[in-house]
């Protein structure tokens, strides 16, 4: 953008000849003009819906007045939500999901990235498959997992064939959350691996060679050299993973619908069903707003990290 700002004045000065003052104004306006579509889209599809969502959280809204007058109720909806035991359970489940995703995506993602940090035909094929998995719509991959993890599905058939007892992956209240978390993590591993692979490839070979000359073995090099160098990447990936956990809905919708009972009611799931099954729009919106605040809390360090990156 700064390049355009420096070069354009000369062009305007020599050809159009509107005078230096006018061309200077145009130059200042043109780069801003480029931003207009993005700003309009952002305002229309992000900022305004969020504003209305927040307003709904502070109002009494149901099916009878969704198109009509919304009575302002202040923080009453927040009081209602904080008084719901299911909200706190949902928050705990969401935190559990975030922890599971963090562990799997960082550890498995790092291992996969390490294996794929070389170049070659096999690596390219594996990377291609991973991108395919990552790009699959959750409704599709979720349906396949639902079929595989059913009590009489393929996974249990395999377990049975090797003499093991079948497992109620999606219908056991103690296991369902972690099963869905595993599927969500599975879908996220390609993203983590690709990000970490990028970080690994950015480490100069000289650093690794220096560690080898100093007598460091493979694992010591990984833990003492590679991981510290990957820390900024992992930090950003970790924050993105937590954000992902707080907005993860689709796999829950396909696999369990929040059940069995309420065992997989994370905050996004609870918000959705409260708003659209029970038609308690205000409470659903309030839960969504609280989730958003939690996400914003994690977004702040993310934005700071991004801004600090060029300095590093």
């Amino acid at each position, binding site marked *: 953008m700064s390049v355009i700002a420096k070069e354009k004045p000369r062009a305007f000065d020599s050809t159009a000849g509107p005078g230096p003052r006018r061309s200077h104004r145009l130059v200042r306006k043109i780069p801003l003009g480029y931003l207009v579509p993005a700003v309009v889209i952002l305002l229309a*599809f992000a900022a*305004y*819906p*969020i*504003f*209305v*969502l927040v*307003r*709904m959280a502070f109002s009494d809204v*149901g*099916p*009878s007045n*969704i*198109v*009509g*007058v*919304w009575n302002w109720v202040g923080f009453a909806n927040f009081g209602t939500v904080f008084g719901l035991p299911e909200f706190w359970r949902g928050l705990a489940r969401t935190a559990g999901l975030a922890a599971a995703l963090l562990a799997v995506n960082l550890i498995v993602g790092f291992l996969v990235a390490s294996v794929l940090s070389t170049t070659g035909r096999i690596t390219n094929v594996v990377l291609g498959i991973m991108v395919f998995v990552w790009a699959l*719509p*959750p*409704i599709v991959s979720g349906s396949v997992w639902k079929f595989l993890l*059913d*009590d*009489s599905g393929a996974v249990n058939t395999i377990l049975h064939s090797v003499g093991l007892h079948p497992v*109620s992956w*999606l*219908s*056991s*209240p103690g296991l*369902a959350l972690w099963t869905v978390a595993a599927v969500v993590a599975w879908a996220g591993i390609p993203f983590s691996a690709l990000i970490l692979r990028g970080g690994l490839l950015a480490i100069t070979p000289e650093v690794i060679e220096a560690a080898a000359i100093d007598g460091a073995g493979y694992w010591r090099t990984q833990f003492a050299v590679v991981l510290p160098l990957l820390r900024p990447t992992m930090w950003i990936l970790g924050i993105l993973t937590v954000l992902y956990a707080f*907005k993860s*809905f*689709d796999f829950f*919708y*396909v696999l*369990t*619908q*929040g*059940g*069995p*009972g*309420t*065992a997989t009611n994370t905050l*996004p799931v609870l*918000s*959705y*069903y409260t*708003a*659209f*099954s*029970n*038609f*308690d729009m205000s409470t*659903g*919106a309030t839960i*969504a707003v609280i989730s958003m605040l939690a996400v914003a809390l994690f977004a702040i360090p993310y934005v700071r990290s991004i801004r600090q990156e060029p300095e590093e």
Partner: protein
Amino acid sequence: MRRRTQAVRVAAVAASLLLVATGCTMSNDSAANAPAGTTTLKFWNYYTGTQLTWLQAQTKKFEKANPKIKVDLVQVVGSQQDQKLLASVATGNGPDVLINNIVVDNPTLVAGGVMKDMTSMWNSYQDKAQYPSTAAWKTNGKVYNLMSYTNLIGLYYNKDILKASGIDSPPTTLTEFQDDMAKVTAGGTYKALAESGAPTVEGAWLFAPQLLGLGVNYCNFSGKKVTTAFDRVAGWSKKGYIPLSTATWDQNTAWQQFMTGKYAFGLNGNWQLGNVKSAKFAYGTTEFPKPTDGTSTVYPGGEGIAIGAKSKHPAEAWKYIQSVFLSKDAAETSFAQTGSIPLRKDASDTQAIKTNTYVQPFLTAAQKTGTWPNNPKTADMQTSLGKAISSVISGQQSASAGAQSAIDTIKKAKASGGGTCK
């Protein structure tokens, strides 16, 4: 102006809340390129299987008879129909014709201004006398929903498994039913029962008849009878009569399981009578087993038909509804192909229905159904029961805790809906 601003607001919030529902799609069936001078009706429906095949055939017949009217059959995910309809009021691009899960969402959709007042159309309908008064769903004296058929729950059974298990006849009481399920389970080869226990209105719909026959409904949902019913279902889960995954099965999944031929019994609706014909085993149907000292009573269900409040072609939409849903031909073909029980008198009296042994239990059940609560929070009440029963089946809650949570949440929802019930 103010209404328009609010409409934009609602559209915006619907968009933000629906961002999470990435899987929701709509697809058009036909009439994409209608010639000029042709009226195109948008019909939002969630029919699948034989019901969809029937609808497509009926629609084609209608279009042939009315060349200036084309009908777009827009497929909507059933569980998302209500929210899409509510959002459509705000955006003004709703359907001309719609079906809805009438027993769950009628009060919500009426309150949301989704459906057009059809009172004058219904009152001037020449065949109105063929329908019982319950076919027209009224709010404040105005007709918003019509029913052309009813759907009820009954018990399907696999005759081959019953024979192999030494069971001579299907059960008529819950006690007999439990004895039979014990015999099947003890055999070790087959499973006993495939039913929905999902934490939704479907789980509630399947469980409620255990109490309805004892006079317990959403309006008086409390007491020892409720605890006993929850105890019974918890026992079914513990004894292996129903698999743990029942806690997440919807009715379609439960039906697929029954059709595998591995289950002795399947609790499901008469709309599966069309699909059961493809079973690779001998089958039969009977009424929902009655509780001790009670009767076999189920809730009446089925789709409501309505005209969208924002429809620009209400006259054509009404013509379509009369032809495709309310006519005698529609009732007869619907029964023949899907098993739906017609409410229209001259259709339900036909020989084809009277001599069909599989439909008789459902016809009997239709004569003595339970009454739904007339409360704006009826969806909330039913979902609360669904969650409780799902949690008990899965073992997330004990039977007594599940019963108590159902009693408390239903009471709370009822009060929140203004306390009205009948």
